């Protein structure tokens, strides 16, 4: 039996196809374990080696990694939701209701999407707190902290735009209150200090461009949908790339 298994493994792993894909042998020795990292675009996000101290769970609590994991989970479940959801005020609500009822696994994807969104926001805050408490933002890593803050803000805006899409009462009024805050922005808001003096009216201030109108309606839903599904994820991916690259270059600030 053993010989048979070896024979099969031999036939599979020595073929040209296999070798063209995997540039390394089974990672049973250090050379192959290093090669696994070298030859994989995702794995090589990590260095090939890392200090033993850096592996301690009670240092990073894996929070940055978890945040990224939630982001990937959100992206995947988000795409699934997009197969059924149409951002039209007349049918958005029913699409979400369909997802929850008639579509097989629909409620699973929606729940996963929602809970990983909440989890991502929470883990981003905890990650920021951990990075602060371990002083990992100190030179030379200040810029990476700034990129982190930008990612935090984009995560919050992502969550906020996603909150409107189900178009139920909670969504509509949470966004109405939020957009009224935008209207209260100083200088560029219609209701903000020195706004009217600068000619900011109901139809040309920052709230108007945020909602694409004077009321939270179809154009607001569409703008939020585009931002939520495309605009902001691109921005996030870009800044995440910078974030991961800086960690990769500046090395792990873990305990020496």
């Amino acid at each position, binding site marked *: 039996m053993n010989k048979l298994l070896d024979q099969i493994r031999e036939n599979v792993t020595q073929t040209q196809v296999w070798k063209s894909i995997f540039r390394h042998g089974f990672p049973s020795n250090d050379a192959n374990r290093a090669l696994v990292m070298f030859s994989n675009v995702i794995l090589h996000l990590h260095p090939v080696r890392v200090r033993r101290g850096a592996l*301690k769970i*009670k*240092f990073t609590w894996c929070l940055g990694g978890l945040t990224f994991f939630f982001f990937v989970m959100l992206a995947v479940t988000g795409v699934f939701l997009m197969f059924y959801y149409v951002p039209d005020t007349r049918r958005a609500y029913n699409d979400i209701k369909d997802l929850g009822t008639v579509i097989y696994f629909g409620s699973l994807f929606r729940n996963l999407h929602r809970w990983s969104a909440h989890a991502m926001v929470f883990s981003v805050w905890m990650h920021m*707190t951990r990075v602060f*408490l371990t002083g990992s933002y100190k030179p030379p890593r200040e810029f990476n902290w700034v990129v982190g803050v930008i990612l935090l803000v984009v995560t919050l805006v992502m969550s906020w735009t996603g909150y409107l899409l189900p178009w139920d009462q909670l969504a509509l009024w949470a966004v109405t209150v939020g957009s009224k805050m935008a209207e209260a922005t100083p200088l560029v808001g219609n209701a903000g200090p020195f706004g009217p003096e600068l000619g900011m009216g109901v139809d040309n201030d920052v709230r108007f461009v945020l909602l694409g109108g004077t009321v939270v309606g179809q154009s607001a839903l569409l703008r939020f949908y585009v931002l939520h599904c495309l605009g902001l994820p691109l921005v996030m991916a870009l800044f995440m790339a910078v974030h991961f690259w800086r960690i990769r270059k500046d090395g792990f600030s873990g*305990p020496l």
Partner: protein
Amino acid sequence: MSDRLGIGIFLTVGTLVIMGLFLGATIWLENSFKKDKQKK
């Protein structure tokens, strides 16, 4: 007036409790890593 006072007390106590949680965690982690260093 009772509500106002209640909110005030709740706010103060709540802030101190949460601060205590975070400070406690930091100090606990600080000591536990110090112990690791001595052990090694």
